[in-house]
């Protein structure tokens, strides 16, 4: 599985990529594989604000609904509207076209609490071994 080095990660399997001071957020390859075929995504609205670990989206596969948690607090600058028509982008390209939201980060210091790609890969390996 791929965990790009330019992202940081949560133990709830979200990734964050910081670009021009904003955070792009999506779910990891591990998460999309666990979900299976994604058929529906419920996204927030631009301007909504979320606390750290607050649910900002729901992603639905054929068999279940999963919450997606906000890795760092902030305000929604943009949502990936393409997911409404093509939710399978999350399966096809979870680190690219399958992104969820762009977030204005309230406190950049929070990013330090997240895992780097190596730490996250280790975490996934441990979790899968259980």
């Amino acid at each position, binding site marked *: 599985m791929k965990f790009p080095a330019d992202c940081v990660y949560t133990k709830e*399997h979200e990734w964050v990529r910081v670009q021009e001071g904003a955070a792009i957020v999506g779910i990891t390859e591990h*998460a999309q594989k*666990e979900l299976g*075929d994604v*058929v*529906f995504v419920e996204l927030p609205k631009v301007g909504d604000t979320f606390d750290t670990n607050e649910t900002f989206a729901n992603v*639905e596969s*054929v068999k279940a*609904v999963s919450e997606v948690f906000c890795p760092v607090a902030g305000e929604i600058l943009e949502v990936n509207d393409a997911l409404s028509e093509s939710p399978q982008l999350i399966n096809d390209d979870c680190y690219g076209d399958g992104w969820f939201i762009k977030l204005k980060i309230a406190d950049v210091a929070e990013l330090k609490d997240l895992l780097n790609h190596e730490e996250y890969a280790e975490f996934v390996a441990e979790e899968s071994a*259980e």
Partner: protein
Amino acid sequence: MNSPTVGLRKTALHSLHKKLGARMAEFGGWDMPIEYSGIIQEHLAVRTAAGLFDISHMGEILIEGPESLRLIQHVTCNDASRLKDEQIQYSALLTPEGTFVDDILVHRFSADRYFLCVNASNAEKDFDWICDQNAFDAEVVYVSDQYSQLALQGPKALNILQPLVSIDLADIKYYWLKRGKIGDLDCLITRTGYTGEDGFELYFDPDASERVWTQLMKAGSGDGLIPTGLGARNTLRLEAKMALYGHEITDQTTPWEADLAWVVKLDKGDFLGKEALIKQKGTGIQKKLVGFEMVGKGIGRDGYPVLINGQQAGVVTSGGPSPYLKKNIGLAYVPVSHSDLGKEIEIQVRTQAVPARIVKTPFYTRPTT
């Protein structure tokens, strides 16, 4: 995300499923394959070609002896006396209150030998239940461990299976069975399934499981046969509106409510639950199982509230996306007064009330050939 699998039972094909990369999860106390290549792909394969399911978790109970039929007639609500040798009947075990203990398949091998296929999660409960009711000259034997069960389902199922077996499969009508051989292996072959497609279910010695699985997969490779898991089995049975114990049918629902009146034969003599069913027929039911289709954006799922005029009036028993129909569908209990086709309801999807409509079921019926 990973559910603990310690202490779960494993079918004889467990390690093969893992080798195939199946995602495994708990179902009815068993560690079962949920999906291999993806639920949507597997679902469509069964509708258009064929899929192979390991359903060895299902329970089997043998009833033998001169009064086998009397015992079966007492504990089930359908009329097993109408069965001929090698015929199969969908039926149910009911409580004295007329609610479900389980839904089952009754196979008549001969006048003094019947074979029941029951749900995995209920197998031991059903066995104890039948034993407790056995005031007859009949022997009840728990034989689940003696069988692996595979379901080969889909329009190509007959073509795939035929070259491997000793008998002419076209001779087996829907809900009938024959004994045959796969190579030198004795096999019970039934024309049944839980997908809404044509297909067969095979019962045989668990020791032969990997061999049979591999033979079938090889025989079906040119016809598009793929391994299919319990995820697709669930979406397939939902489209075909087949009930699932714990969802549409429970010990809180009766056949009248569950739209399964055809399974009840009140004219067959006494059986458990009959008095309660007659009484409920007189007073009338309050809730009824219906099919719905989401009209607004959102997916109504198991356990979600059904709203009528903004008030909770029912509950979704099974719901989700329909891979074949490409709609979001489901089954729900609603008040009888609001159960007509076309009626508007709402499903409470998290924070939103999403419009839905009561529609005709089954959602999917296979084309007649």
